[in-house]
């Protein structure tokens, strides 16, 4: 039963990818997209509920492992994917020429989108490092096309950089996996050798050098895909050039999901290297990402580029949470992941009406939205306020929990530096928030068309989600949950 | 209530209310003599007060209630200060306590009232003096508080009675801290009483006035009030100097004698100093007072260096 369900999780979107090519007319494609997305999301959410309900020890199967953390990731991917699928028609309606011939553009978009989504969903479930690598590589292929969808010169450039950097990074990671595989060869040398459990079981037996180098190579490789500084450089370009729904999926689903893999590597392989080296590597990546993000946040930036750099910052925070490796921090990471996903995708969705009514905001900071359109201003404001970790947003509590977890892990120095860096990053976001909402705006109010109305609905929905999340975080942020999450992942 | 305190109370009131103008008159007289003039008689201030009492006041245009209240407030707070003073180490309990800081506060209240009155008439000259007066007060109050710290050292109290008890015996002059306090307090006296080199009380040029400036518009009884309170400020300062700084051993009578002699001597000193000293530039005054403050800090250091005296 559970196997079928979990097979369906990636299978349904794949089928959707095929079906969406059938209808000849755009409306037809949109309709298929609507149905397919809803079904896939429903399936994935059911699975994640199952995982959360009795996944304390993790449900293990032929190819998957469904534990609490994985279930949370699955839910996030499902929700964000669904929202992106819902806004895609509005985006496509207004998107001009694209990379593909006008007739097939929509079909290609949906196909790539669904394949991308399917890969992500599967990624949250796989129990095997090798397979995970293959899936990550697959996401690159699908998403690169989507990034360049608009076919503009900048989009091509961004897509190309994304493709090259991540593929080379993943090549490095693959070398690391090979080294690990070679090290584990005495315990089988079959595909199953790379299962998380078998890695965890035999890690202690590994020659220390092998484990260390495998770990370094894998982490550096995955870092390029997660977008950790200093190998994050594709991230701002891709996020700012991709179609908004895709940017949302990239930032809110792809990066965290790859990070889940990195997390599992750290948890399984980390025991093989002395004195928490793996955790310290994570902390280093986290601080580096925070520090690199700050100067960019300080500059008035185009809306989506700003969001991209804030993604860099938040990936850093998540890395810190993982590196602290204490239950509180783990709870913080999960809450942060979810909150960031909702807020960030909301931000990207508001970019659709923004770019529609004010195309210039593709390369300069938006100003005075409050006077131009209330729903858009609300969406942008709520998303930015949440991302800058202001109470009562869930990110406030998650950051608090992560830092507290850091102090529990006796990392006071790291926590202090991180707190200061977060405050510095906040400056940029605060400035952007003030100017975006209250700055001097030109032109008169936008008429509330389809996109604006949709943004309004999304804003309401996602805001309710955020509130629910923060209430949950505030009331239930209690260390038992964290412990079970930790147990779940390992 | 013992006889001593009774007498002390009488002196507090009578000396303050009736005796104060005599000090001013004395200083004027001596000054004139030292300058080779005959000068006004010692009782001249009383005559002036009587004359003003008979005259009607002036209601300048524009003015508000504040202009009317100011002299009364100034006189009232000065009068209350009289009741805080120890006389020969004694004072009756008027229910007002004898705290030094209360004294400072009341003097500030008087200054506040007068400077505000200067604003009320929208006149140009009064404010010139008011601004300077307030500027001095910043430094004077700082210095006065430092002096109080030094005087509070022996008995750890700001109660004027206990401070004057602490200064009963001549041994106090053995302490550098006491010397510092005494010297600094002399500066405070000169500044508070508006004497040269800080201010020239008998100038009639509006541009050089400090304390006199805000009085310009007043006439009649209100002016009488203000002239009396100027005189009373002399009394207050001199009595404080005698009680807190000059040793006054022996029985109460002797102490009273010391007080009277001290007040006389200090008046003479003021007169002499006014004759030999020219009025200094307004902007130099803070330097003078600042040096006093430095002196006080040295005194404090010496106290602790001397193992707490």
């Amino acid at each position, binding site marked *: 039963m559970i196997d079928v369900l979990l097979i369906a999780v990636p299978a349904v979107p794949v089928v959707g990818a095929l079906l969406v090519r059938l209808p000849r007319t755009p409306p037809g494609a949109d309709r298929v997209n609507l149905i397919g997305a809803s079904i896939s999301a429903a399936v994935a959410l059911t699975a994640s509920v199952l995982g959360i309900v009795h996944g304390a020890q993790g449900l293990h199967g032929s190819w998957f492992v469904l534990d609490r953390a994985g279930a949370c990731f699955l839910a996030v991917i499902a929700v964000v994917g669904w929202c992106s699928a819902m806004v895609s028609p509005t985006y496509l309606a207004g998107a001009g020429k694209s990379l593909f011939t006008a007739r097939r553009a929509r079909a290609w978009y949906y196909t790539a989108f669904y394949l991308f989504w399917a890969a992500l969903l599967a990624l949250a479930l796989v129990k095997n490092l090798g397979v995970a690598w293959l899936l990550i590589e697959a996401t690159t292929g699908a998403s690169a096309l989507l990034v360049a969808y608009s076919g503009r010169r900048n989009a091509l450039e961004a897509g190309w950089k994304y493709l090259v*950097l991540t593929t*080379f990074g993943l090549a490095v990671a693959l070398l690391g996996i090979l080294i690990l595989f070679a090290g584990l060869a005495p315990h089988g040398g079959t595909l199953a050798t790379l299962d998380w459990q078998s890695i965890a079981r035999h890690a202690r037996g590994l020659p220390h050098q092998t484990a260390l180098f495998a770990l370094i190579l894998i982490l*550096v490789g995955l870092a390029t895909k997660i977008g950790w500084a*200093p*190998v994050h*450089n594709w991230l701002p370009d891709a996020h700012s050039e991709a179609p908004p729904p895709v940017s949302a999926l990239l930032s809110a689903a792809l990066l965290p999901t790859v990070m889940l893999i990195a997390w599992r590597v750290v948890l399984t392989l980390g025991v093989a*290297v002395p004195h928490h*080296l793996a955790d310290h590597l994570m902390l280093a990546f986290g601080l580096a990402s925070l520090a690199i993000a700050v100067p960019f946040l300080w500059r008035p930036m185009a809306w989506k580029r700003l969001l991209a750099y804030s993604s860099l910052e938040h990936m850093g925070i998540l890395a810190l949470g993982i590196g602290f490796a204490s239950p509180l921090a783990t709870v913080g990471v999960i809450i942060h992941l979810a909150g960031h996903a909702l807020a960030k995708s909301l931000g990207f969705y508001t970019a659709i009406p923004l770019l529609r009514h004010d195309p210039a905001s593709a390369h300069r900071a938006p100003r005075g939205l409050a006077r131009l359109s209330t729903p858009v201003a609300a969406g942008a404001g709520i998303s930015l306020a949440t991302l800058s970790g202001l*109470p009562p947003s869930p990110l*406030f*509590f998650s950051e*608090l929990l992560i830092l*507290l977890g850091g*102090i529990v892990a006796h990392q*006071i120095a790291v926590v202090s530096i991180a707190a200061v860096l977060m*405050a510095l990053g*906040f*400056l940029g976001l605060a*400035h952007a928030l*003030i100017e975006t909402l*209250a700055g001097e705006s030109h032109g008169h109010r936008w008429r509330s068309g389809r996109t604006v109305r949709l943004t309004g609905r999304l804003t309401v929905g996602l805001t309710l989600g955020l509130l629910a999340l923060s209430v949950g975080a505030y009331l239930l*942020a209690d260390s038992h949950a964290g412990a079970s999450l930790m147990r779940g992942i390992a | 209530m013992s006889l001593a305190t009774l007498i002390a109370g009488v002196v507090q009131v009578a000396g303050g209310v009736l005796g104060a103008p005599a000090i001013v008159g004395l200083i004027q007289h001596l000054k004139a003599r030292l300058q080779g003039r005959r000068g006004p008689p010692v009782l001249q201030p009383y005559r002036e007060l009587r004359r003003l009492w008979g005259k*009607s*006041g002036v209601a*300048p*245009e524009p003015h*508000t209630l*504040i202009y*009317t209240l100011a*002299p*009364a407030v100034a006189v009232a*707070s000065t009068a*209350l200060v009289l009741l805080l003073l120890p006389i020969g180490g004694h004072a009756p309990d008027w229910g*007002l*306590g004898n705290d*030094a*800081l*209360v004294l400072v*506060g009341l003097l*500030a209240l008087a*200054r506040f009232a007068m400077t*505000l009155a200067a*604003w009320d008439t*929208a*006149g140009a000259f009064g404010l010139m003096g008011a*601004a300077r007066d*307030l500027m001095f007060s*910043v430094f004077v*109050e*700082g*210095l006065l508080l430092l002096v109080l710290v030094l005087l*509070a*050292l022996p008995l*750890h*109290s700001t109660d004027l009675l206990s401070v004057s008890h602490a200064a009963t015996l001549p041994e106090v002059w053995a302490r550098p801290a006491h010397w510092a306090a005494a010297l600094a307090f002399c500066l405070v006296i000169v500044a508070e009483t508006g004497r040269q080199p800080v201010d020239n009380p008998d100038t009639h040029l509006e541009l050089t006035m400090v304390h006199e400036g805000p009085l310009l*518009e007043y006439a*009649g*009884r209100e002016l009488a009030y203000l002239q009396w309170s100027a005189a009373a400020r002399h009394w207050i300062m001199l009595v404080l100097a005698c009680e807190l700084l000059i040793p006054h051993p022996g029985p109460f009578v002797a102490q009273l004698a010391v007080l009277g002699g001290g007040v006389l001597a200090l008046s003479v000193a003021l007169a002499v100093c006014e004759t030999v000293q020219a009025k200094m530039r307004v*902007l130099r005054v803070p330097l003078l007072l600042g040096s006093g403050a430095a002196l006080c800090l040295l005194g404090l250091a010496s106290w*602790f260096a001397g193992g707490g005296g």
Partner: protein
Amino acid sequence: MGTPGALVLAGVLAIAAGALSAGLSRSPRAGLMAQSVGMVLLALAGVWVLASGHAVGAGFRSDVRPAFGLDGLSGFFLLVIAVVGAPATLFARDALEADWQGRSLAVATGAFLLALVGFVCARDVSTFLGFWELMTLVPAAAILLARQDREARHGVFVYLAITHIGGSGVWVAMLVLAQHGALGGHPLGGGLAAFVACASLVGFSTKAGLMPLHSWLPRAHPLAPAHISALMSGVMIKLALYGLVRVLFQWLAPPGLWVGITLMAVGALSCVGGVLYALMQHELKRLLAFHSIENVGIVALGLGASLVFRDIGQPMWSAIAFAAALLHALNHALFKGLLFLGAGAFSKAVGGLELDRLGGLLRRMPWTGATFALGAMAIAGLPPLNGFASEWLTLQSLLHLGVASHLGVALAGALATAALAGTAALAVYCFVKVIGLVLLGLPRRSECAEASEVPVGMRASMVFLAGSCVALGVLPGLLVPTLAALGPGRVRLHEGAGLNVPGTGSLPTLALALALVLLVSALVRLARSRRAAPAPTWTCGQPPATGLAWTSAGFTKPLRLVLEALLRPQREVRVISSLGVVESVTYQAEVPHLFDTLLYGPVSRGALRAAGIARSVQSGSLRAYLIYLLALLGLLLALARTGVLG
């Protein structure tokens, strides 16, 4: 949870309901009324807890489970919030328009009040920090709702920026304390205590607006609507000191004498610097904002003295200094609230608040004018008002620090005493100027000439505040022993109307006030027994004209000249003459805020330049990015190979 708990709950609900109804209904008046009712209920709760001394609700806890409660200290600060909040909301009821902006401001007011209340009632670290942040954010939002011009946006940004960077200190301190169970009742000691002390000093004193971390305050406070400014200046910055008190007196084992001395130094700097720059201001609300810095400095002096006394083993004086600090916090809340509301009333009546363009308002607006003057006397620390009582107590404790047992402590005490005395005199100077320019003399603008008194609600709120200034000035003794009991050592002081403290000549406020009033009335009667002859003011015979009137700059000139080296005033006289005939002479003078020109300006410019350089990382060249990848790889591998990574 008992009666006070119920009162708090009712009050909070009333405020929330008020905020909601103000947002939904067409006019915010009813909602604001409900808010001020809620404030009254909270005041009752605060007084109840303060008087009974029994804590209600949860105690402080170190985990992250939400908890709320109320103890003596919280009760006192709840009272501080309420005595400003109630009149402020009443004032806003008449001050705010019934349009969208007015309604949203009313909602923001309610949210602000709730944030303040939540902060003093928070009992666990996440709630504490949450409300701490909200307390900062809501007024920022309120300012932006009121006005969106460039100046406002910049001010709000600076406010958020500085408070947030400083606030990271609070975060670190609170998290460390929570993790070590210090909130749960085991004070944190050892080397970590010093770290936490530093972090909390930085964090809380930024929010309290203590120099040199104050730069946001004179920018942000004048921007807000009057009643929000009153709450910010009167309450918000005090709550930062509440946090500091919690950390330094309750959650930390004494880390050493230096903490108290540092706090005193900061306080002295703030009070002198604050009042000096206040004197140099020519805009009323900005001037008042600088005075908030001064008064927070005075409170900090008291707290620092209390810490030092505690550490040198004089519990009685420690408690007195503590009580003095708290009393001054309450007093400042009262008269600063009064003054800001008065400023709001004036601006509603005449528009701009440039000091040189006002004048003669006492005649036009007797109620506002009289209460404003009273508030000015109180903040100037003149007897028999409340400012004098608390400054007297603070001065006494500093002075007794000056006669304490070690040279270092004594010098610190003596210097602080002199500084506070000078500050008091400067405050008198400043408010003589303010009263003179705003209320007295001739009106300098037509608006001032026909200004009319504000509605009754606004008047009532100001009268209430003025009345409580008098009451606390006459009967401070009713409160001080209770406050001293909250302090370290739990000392019981002598009860009574006045302040009867051993080691002083005692301050019988009641007798003093009565004597003053009686004498003054008698003297006035005597003097006025003859009718005074009306006559124009003497200005060398010509009629008094506004052109000749004194300006704010002119009145403070002597001080500016004396302190030229310190204040570095800048003046510029431009004479435009053609053919030897002078056509116009323009004079410009200003006193730059040295902390901005010498400290904040260079730092921010440098930071921005550095950021610009750092941004060149994103050069746009794919090959550079690949080189980063190789370099990172090489670096980590080399570290691993050389065994640095184990």
